[in-house]
């Protein structure tokens, strides 16, 4: 096979893992409360700035500050649920959309005001110095160390999320609340606490994604917009509320975005058009998405 194609498949799969982790958070919240978090991209932006400032102020590498960023974002998720989402839980869908959409706008505008619209980057993060920043997998096939480690961390986070949901009592309670919150309450499960937990975990997933992206991606107030758009597509593609669906659809989108332009001889600028085409094709055949229930 052509080395460029192999290279593209690898890059696509690696970035796809990160897309999947971002989308998993979105899907978790939707599965739990049937609410779409339209501030998801801004959560990612906050996580990237958290990494940036810890590097800028204390020279903490994004990898070292990852646990802090994840914990901070867990808190952001819980606060968002407590202060905003719980208030619109029984409100019409439109009010719910405006609540999280408004939060997203507010966060983006605040970031611009506080930190300006400048593009920032973390210079020479630890991972870019490991093995010269890239590993040769053959003649003309390289993968970047930051990208590889980012994908591995995303995969580990994904596996932990799966274990938490499928193998623990807390995960069982989350699933029960997702299916029928009032019957879950009769079992002694406090729905409000589970919603806090769901938002916290979802935001922590985005936090981890943001922390690993910070090693090799520009950081600016609207950085989350494209990622969020892709995450919505991935959730719809994988099926609303399905974590496995998010994983597979995330990797699919990563692959289509990078490999398809190459195969079809289309300029990379049109990569999102290809992603949308994939989405439309799947949704025409299976409106509920690949693994969806809704």
């Amino acid at each position, binding site marked *: 096979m052509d080395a460029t194609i192999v290279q593209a498949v690898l890059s696509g799969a690696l970035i796809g893992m990160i897309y999947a982790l971002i989308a998993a958070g979105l899907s978790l919240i939707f599965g739990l409360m049937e609410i779409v978090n339209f501030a998801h991209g801004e959560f990612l932006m906050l996580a990237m700035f958290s990494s940036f400032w810890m590097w800028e102020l204390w020279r903490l590498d994004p990898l070292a500050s990852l646990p802090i960023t994840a914990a901070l974002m867990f808190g952001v998720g819980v606060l968002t649920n407590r202060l905003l989402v719980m208030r619109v839980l029984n409100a019409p869908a439109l009010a719910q959309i405006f609540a999280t959409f408004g939060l997203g706008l507010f966060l983006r505008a605040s970031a611009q005001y506080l930190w300006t619209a400048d593009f920032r980057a973390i210079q020479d993060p630890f991972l870019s110095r490991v093995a010269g920043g890239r590993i040769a997998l053959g003649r003309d096939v390289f993968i970047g160390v930051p990208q590889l480690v980012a994908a591995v961390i995303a995969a580990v986070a994904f596996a932990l999320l799966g274990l938490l949901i499928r193998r623990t*009592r807390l995960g*069982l*309670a989350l*699933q*029960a609340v997702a*299916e*029928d919150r*009032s*019957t*879950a*309450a*009769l*079992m*002694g*499960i*406090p*729905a409000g606490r589970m919603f806090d937990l769901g938002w916290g975990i979802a935001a922590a997933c985005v936090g981890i994604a943001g922390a690993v992206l910070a090693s090799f991606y520009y950081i600016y107030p609207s950085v989350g917009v494209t990622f969020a758009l892709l995450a919505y597509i991935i959730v719809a593609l994988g099926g609303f509320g399905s974590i496995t669906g998010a994983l597979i659809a995330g990797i699919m989108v990563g692959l289509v975005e990078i490999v398809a332009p190459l195969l079809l001889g289309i300029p990379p600028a049109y990569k999102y058009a290809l992603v949308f085409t994939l989405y439309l094709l799947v949704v025409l055949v299976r409106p509920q998405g690949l693994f969806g*229930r809704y």
Partner: protein
Amino acid sequence: MQARPDRASTPLLAVEDLHVSYGGVPALYGLSFEVHAGEVVALVGANGAGKSTTLRAISGLIPPDSGSIRLDDRQLNRMPPHAIAALGIAHVPEGRRIFSRLSVLQNLLLGSYARTARSTEQQTLEEVLTLFPRLRERLHQPAGTLSGGEQQMLAIGRGLMLRPRLLMLDEPSLGLAPLIVEGIFDVVRTLSASGMTILLIEQNVQETLMLAHRAYVLQVGQIVATGAGVDLLQSDLVRRAYLGL
């Protein structure tokens, strides 16, 4: 008919002058009744009389407008449902409401989610599976694939996993074939014989009044008759006016 348990003691559950409404439309108008430890108490009455609403108010799913609900001497009004469950009230809701996407075992383990039930979980599970051998055969199947009767057994079994002080059953025989209904009544009799306190709602009035120690007849949100199950069954007034017998 079993001997009536000692009723000199304070009731386990005491409901007094309970008013409940749905969006301003009243459903219960000043309901009062009690359940003593070890009793089977039945609530009977026509569709829409307010039987399910009464159970929902007790388990905290609907906050009452006024009145009091006490377990022992503890006031339950305004407590959230998960806290009421943790006190040992198991509400097996109308329509079963099992978690259909989860397995039979997962449903049962959710029944013992409350901290108080955790330490005895394995032992209770064994007891529940002995009571319902069908559930043991289907332990790892998604609950949604069970038959109606099996789903009802699961709903009751899930309630029992709490090791409840009070078991509330809302129309456990609804929509089931006569043979299965008999099985459900057998289970209620077995539980009662083992000393379980049960608040039972049933459409199957004759059989319910035969097994209940006491019963209350509800009509449009109020209690209109009360007495021992067998006595109510023989009262012409109750038979004609409220039970349609």
